[in-house]
């Protein structure tokens, strides 16, 4: 008996109600009575009546018992652990959770055993509660629906109403996701800015969260950790710039060639080939950058007497550039194709060569779309994580030299938040502040790009 069997049980009950609803409708039909809807709508009506409230209560209890228990269990955690500076709720919960699952790493403190036993008991109680609530709802409300059925009952209309409201509800998930993102970032960011002034975060020139301890918060002493995000943004900018230097010319020329010069066969071969580049996972690019491209550049650099860092911005940016070629080529290809044929014909009619039509007619006409594609590529490059984590390193150097090691916003977010962290420390909170700025920047870029595309589209339609 666990959550899964309960779920299957609920589904079975609603299936049963479908059967009964269907059967009673059929029996009415067999009595030569004229039904308002097809028989299976009666079955569906009863089944929906049974499954929706029961599933709702099932999920509600499942979600909220977790929230409730994880707070209640803190009663069992000894005071000295609760009050110690490196208290971390997530780790304590994971410790108890492991004990509940029967996974032990070495000796277990007594309170963990007590807490995990309590947790198991609570879980069982909540499961029993869930069992009774959901099953009784499934049976009871299903029965109410069943009672509603009579000859003139408009079951199809009711079923359709229920389904349409379910469809509407699912479209709210997208909004909830956004709200979730905003909330998860904003609150922690505000707490970060309560510790570190926003001016230091935005304009500070050194990023060094590694030595975070009690110094900053407690003693009022100028702590060892510094949170100036300028080097991170410079690094992000530098790597994105290198990526654009690679991808914009290649992407644009490819798009022009594919849409204007290539015949059908070339197009059908090279367009998908370029798109493969967009489908390769970023972790593969990261591996490629760190183990193939970076050593190549290092060796190549030392041949001509340049000192290239083993984790250079150049390698990461170059590989990222390869990755975003298809973003530029595909989108530009689309906008170039959307330029009306009549404009081209007018150009050819004046005796222009293809080259002249492209540079004087097509590119100016498609320029807004091309710019939008570049902006989208930039936002993609700024948000890219794995390549920079694996190839660009973590040294927060304030440097515009592409041969140096730099780090980026995303790389710092990942390194700070991966592994065990305490939610309270400024170091952890700084990741949320970084994420907030990252979201704001990419959203502005995206808004602008969509705006440009929209304006352009209206022009020709």
């Amino acid at each position: 008996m666990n959550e899964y069997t309960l779920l299957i049980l609920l589904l079975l009950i609603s299936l049963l109600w479908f059967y009964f609803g269907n059967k009673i409708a059929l029996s009415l039909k067999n009595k030569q009575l004229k039904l308002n809807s097809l028989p299976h709508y009666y079955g569906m009506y009863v089944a929906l009546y049974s499954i929706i409230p029961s599933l709702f209560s099932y999920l509600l209890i499942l979600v909220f018992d977790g929230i409730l228990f994880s707070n209640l269990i803190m009663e069992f955690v000894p005071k000295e652990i609760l009050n110690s500076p490196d208290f971390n709720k997530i780790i304590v919960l994971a410790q108890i959770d492991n004990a509940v699952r029967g996974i032990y790493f070495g000796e277990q403190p007594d309170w963990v055993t007590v807490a995990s036993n309590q947790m198991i008991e609570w879980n069982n109680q909540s499961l029993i509660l869930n069992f009774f609530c959901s099953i009784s709802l499934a049976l009871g409300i299903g029965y109410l629906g069943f009672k509603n059925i009579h000859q003139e009952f408009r079951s199809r209309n009711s079923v359709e109403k229920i389904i349409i409201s379910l469809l509407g509800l699912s479209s709210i998930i997208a909004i909830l996701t956004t709200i979730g993102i905003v909330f998860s970032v904003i609150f922690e960011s505000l707490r970060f800015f309560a510790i570190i002034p926003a001016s230091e975060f935005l304009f500070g020139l050194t990023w060094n969260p590694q030595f975070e301890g009690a110094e900053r918060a407690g003693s009022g002493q100028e702590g060892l950790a510094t949170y100036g995000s300028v080097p991170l943004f410079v690094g992000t900018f530098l790597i994105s710039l290198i990526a654009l230097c690679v991808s914009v010319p290649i992407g644009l020329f490819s798009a022009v060639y594919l849409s204007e010069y290539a015949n059908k066969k070339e197009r059908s071969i090279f367009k998908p080939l370029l798109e493969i580049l967009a489908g390769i996972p970023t972790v593969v690019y990261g591996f490629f950058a760190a183990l193939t491209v970076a050593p190549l550049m290092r060796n190549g650099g030392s041949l001509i007497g340049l000192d290239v860092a083993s984790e250079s911005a150049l390698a990461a940016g170059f590989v990222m550039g390869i990755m975003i070629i298809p973003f530029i080529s595909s989108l530009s290809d689309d906008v170039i194709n959307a330029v009306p044929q009549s404009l081209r014909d007018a150009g050819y009619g004046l005796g222009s060569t293809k080259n002249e039509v492209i540079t004087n007619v097509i590119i100016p006409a498609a320029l807004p779309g091309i710019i939008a594609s570049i902006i989208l590529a930039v936002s993609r490059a700024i948000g890219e994580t794995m390549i920079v984590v694996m190839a660009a390193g973590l040294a927060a150097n304030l440097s515009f030299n592409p041969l140096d090691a730099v780090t980026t916003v995303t790389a710092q977010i990942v390194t700070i938040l991966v592994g065990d962290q305490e939610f309270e420390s400024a170091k952890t909170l700084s990741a949320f502040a970084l994420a907030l700025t990252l979201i704001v920047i990419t959203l502005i870029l995206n808004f602008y790009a969509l705006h440009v595309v929209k304006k352009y589209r209206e022009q020709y339609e």
Partner: protein
Amino acid sequence: MNKNNSKMLTADEASKIVASSVIRRRKKNARLKTYGRIAIGLAVSFLIFLFVSIFSKGIPGFFQYYVTLDVFLDRDRLDPKGDLSPESLYNGDARSIVLESLYKVIKPKGRKEKKAAKKIISSNADVRISKMVLDDPNILGKIIPITFAVDDDIDSFLRGYIKRETPSSERRINDKVIKFVDKLSAENKISYKFSDYILTGSASRSPEIAGIKGAFIGSMLTLAVCFIIAFPLGVATAVYLEEFAPKNKITEIIEVNINNLAAVPSVVFGILGLAIFIGIFGMPRSIPLLGGMVLALMTLPTIIISSRAAIRAVPPSIKDAAYGIGASKLQTIFHHVLPLAMPGMLTGTIIGMAQALGETAPLLMIGMVAFIVDIPGGVTDPGTVLPVQIFMWADFAERMFIQKTSSAIIVLLVFLILMNAAAVILRKKLERRW
């Protein structure tokens, strides 16, 4: 220019001017065409370079070196309790039995040489024997040839990555070990064959026995959760927005919102999972259920956008015909529009799933980076996924992990290619031209 406009050119003069510039202009045109060709050539050669560099490292990763030894499977020492239970075999002395049969071949002298000889065979050899005995207890008491994986350093040496010429102090293996390996090669005890571990092994710190099975199953479980959540929700949202949503502010907000979600960097979804699902809902870390939920939220915009396009592509005549014979709006949609839009929606979904399969950053943040040896049995068991496994292996220093990482990448790429090919075939096969 003004000068030309002011007086009319004769036809001859005009054609002369044009003719004189034509060659130059054609050359310019040819130049642009060449630039285009070069650009595509560069992009394609990057692609080829990437694949060649991964495959040239990854294909050897599917193979490894083994040493074959005649092992006397002493019943009393392997199974001290005599009940053939896993615990009894675990307490048995398999390791020294393996070492003894190794000593018989290479005949080390003294403690130092014995210590060197120990380094040749993978530390997993005793597990292998226990497994064989559990599978077939009849082999106890016999002398049978068994192949064991060699240690990763020896493997790298045999592949030539660790050079004989390098001074002993800078090598990871010393001269004695090399002498023994030479002896084993001379007696034909060393073989190179398809790895037993890469596809069926689980995460391990010893590269010679590390495999991707656990990560692979974790990936499949995560993807299954992602699909179960994202596909119905995505299609339902698309249907609602295309067919039912009233044209008002709220609908507009939802639409803008979906477009913006598609642009949010994936790492932010990891933060969402960390702060909301783990922080507030108290879900355990590292489980495929959580990973699948985060990835579902990430792929939802892709699925919604492509599903809406597919629904929009169904011609209104189909709907009108359905309405004409008395179908309700919902019947029209579920019986006629959705089946016709399904290929398009599935294509978008498969592409979204392929994205989710390759995604790493958000999963790192919700703890799927933990070192987990057990193979997950369900969506609530801690596990890891293929891309994260690749990321972890890429960080390890042992030379053999580079090959193993490349092999894991090949498996991942094969799956992505299969999924994308399925999407293309689906689109080609079921696509209708109206």
